[in-house]
């Protein structure tokens, strides 16, 4: 069964065609055979009745029993000459007056049909494989005689057997023909599948842009091809994003490494004071820390993508958590002349505490960076019908509409002019998005340019399959 399942569809369909053809031919053949059999039987029966009538006329013409016994009867002999046909005429007391052949077995001893009754099909009796009829007749002198007529079926059986052999041969030939034609037809139809296979073989990470032409395909294969093209679209996008990400990462690594190289090379080019070396080393450490942070963030995202991060959910009190964040940013906000507001009474969030803090931290630090002096950063937590929402909102110039869909992309640069100085948005918002995905939630941003920017994190009420 397993082997059959792994056979090619062409072979399987051809087999199915052959089996169906065999079944159809066999039932039609059986029907034809049955019909012929019945037809022949009926014909035989009619023949017996006709002979019975002839025999009665012949006997009525015979003057008496003695004459019947003494003379030859060519007409009767001719009538019953075929093999398996027997006629016996006897007196009611059992004296045989005429017998064309010795029957292979005794004729049935049923009550004979009265002489004045015409024999009907119903009056026939089974006689071995054949049929027999027993009836009374009257001789020319009015003496009654018992007539027995029997007909074997051997000739008919031989004919039917011949017919059946022909039928089976034709059937076998038909099955083979259907199987072969089916194979050809399926093979032809599968041609478009082979196209798909050929295309699939052509695809590599460098050549993800080739697509299947679906217009001229049969509908089943078109569905497959459409799905296949869709998969290619997603793969291509993913690969492009990944390679873009790798390029951005490499680009962002260049800046700190260049700083490290140049400052060390400048320092070593001539003798310097101890303080200079000290300052150089301290500056190196700062750059190293920056590199370490980039690696950590990149790893975090890679793990989040591969769902390798364990999420330990707890019911968190939003107000406590946001207060903690506020106290963390208190100093920075005050120095930047920014108010930090919290509105989060009686809201509970089901989240991993460390990831939750990291996400809110990233949003708040981002908000403070983009809020002008005198502005406000508001942290709100709300409990809609299901789950919880945490909003980080800040006053300020906002984000231009064309940038909004991209701000969660890794290393997206909203302001290309600043990229030269290495000021990409970095990974902060991507990490927020990754954290929300880990929580089966989402984060989105909207902005009223010149007025405010708002980030909304939606936490679901429960996460299936997580503890």
């Amino acid at each position, binding site marked *: 069964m397993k082997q059959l399942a792994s056979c090619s569809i062409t072979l399987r369909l051809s087999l199915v065609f052959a089996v169906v053809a065999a079944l159809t031919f066999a039932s039609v053949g059986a029907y034809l055979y049955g019909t012929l059999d019945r037809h022949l039987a009926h014909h035989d029966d009619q023949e017996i009745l006709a002979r019975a009538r002839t025999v009665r006329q012949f006997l009525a013409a015979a003057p008496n029993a003695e004459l019947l016994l003494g003379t030859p009867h060519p007409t009767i002999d001719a009538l019953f000459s075929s093999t398996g046909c027997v006629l016996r005429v006897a007196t009611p007391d059992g004296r045989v007056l005429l017998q064309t052949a010795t029957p292979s077995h005794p004729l049935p001893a049923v009550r004979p049909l009265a002489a004045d009754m015409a024999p009907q099909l119903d009056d026939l009796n089974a006689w071995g494989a054949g049929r027999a009829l027993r009836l009374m007749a009257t001789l020319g002198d009015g003496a009654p005689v018992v007539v027995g007529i029997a007909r074997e079926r051997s000739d008919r059986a031989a004919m039917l057997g011949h017919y059946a052999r022909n039928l089976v041969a034709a059937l076998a030939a038909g099955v083979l023909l259907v199987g072969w034609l089916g194979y050809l037809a399926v093979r032809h139809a599968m041609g478009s599948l082979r196209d798909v296979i050929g295309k699939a073989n052509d695809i590599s990470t460098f050549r993800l842009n080739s697509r299947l032409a679906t217009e001229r395909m049969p509908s089943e294969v078109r569905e497959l091809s459409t799905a296949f093209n869709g998969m290619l679209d997603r793969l291509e996008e993913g690969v492009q994003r990944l390679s873009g990400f790798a390029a951005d990462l490499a680009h962002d690594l260049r800046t700190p490494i260049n700083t490290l190289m140049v400052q060390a090379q400048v320092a070593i080019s001539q003798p310097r004071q101890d303080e200079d070396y*000290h*300052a150089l*080393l*301290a*500056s*190196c*450490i*700062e750059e*190293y*820390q*920056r590199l*370490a*942070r980039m*690696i*950590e963030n990149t*790893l975090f995202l890679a*793990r989040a993508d591969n769902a*390798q*991060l*364990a999420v330990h959910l707890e019911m968190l009190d939003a107000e406590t958590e946001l207060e*903690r964040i506020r*106290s*963390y*940013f*208190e*100093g*920075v906000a005050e*120095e930047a002349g920014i108010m930090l507001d919290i509105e989060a009474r009686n809201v509970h969030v089901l989240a991993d505490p*460390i990831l939750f*803090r*990291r996400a809110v*931290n990233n949003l708040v*630090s981002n908000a403070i960076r983009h809020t002008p002096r005198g502005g406000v950063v508001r942290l709100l937590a709300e409990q809609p019908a299901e789950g919880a929402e945490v909003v980080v909102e800040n006053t300020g110039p906002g984000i231009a509409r064309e940038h909004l869909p991209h701000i969660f992309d890794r290393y997206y640069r909203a302001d290309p002019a600043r990229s030269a100085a290495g000021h990409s948005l*970095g990974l902060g918002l991507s990490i927020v998005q990754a954290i929300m995905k880990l929580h089966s939630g989402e984060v989105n941003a909207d902005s009223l340019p010149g007025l405010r920017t708002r980030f909304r994190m939606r936490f679901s009420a429960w996460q299936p399959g997580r503890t």
Partner: protein
Amino acid sequence: MRLLIVEDEPKTGSYLRKGLIESGFMTDLAATGTDGLHQALERDYELVVLDVMLPELDGWSVLRQLRASKDTPVLLLTARDGVSDRVKGLELGADDYLVKPFDFSELVARIKTILRRGKARNAEMVQLADLEIDVFKRKVTRGGQRIDLTAQEFALLHLLAKRAGDVLSRTMIASQVWDMNFDSDTNVVDVAIRRLRSKVDDPFEKKLVHTMRGMGYVLEERP
């Protein structure tokens, strides 16, 4: 106080050894897992700093075989920080786990924490030069003069005072004071230190909070 470092990367090993000696620990260095295990079993070390990725006999095996006969505290160093690695290390009986790259000050602080473990040091009063911190009353005075601090500033000063003389990295401060257990690129800690200084140090002649550039901050009395 004798420590053993098991680290196969020669540069890292010798710098770790140098740094730990300068931090006041007598330190031995082993370059392979086999040597490290042998030395750790032969001598009584106060603590073993064990790299996980070692050729031949790896850190896990060294730890497992060491634990079979000895309770010497072990601090694992590793470049892999998957959750399962962490759990494995702690299950095998490691006392702490530090992921590369780490701040050297962080390593020293962790070593000191392990060595101090069991010896309660939650003093009610912490004193350094003329700075006095009353932990229970949350009162801070300097030269008898009362200093008003916010809750966060107090927590920060208390942490620095408890670990006076130790350089504390920004990450460690963020984690201990605000429970922010991740590396953030904000300058929150610098700003908090600046504000603490403006109250604790600026009005006074003698400065107690010092910046160790590239490393972190330390509270100590300097001549």
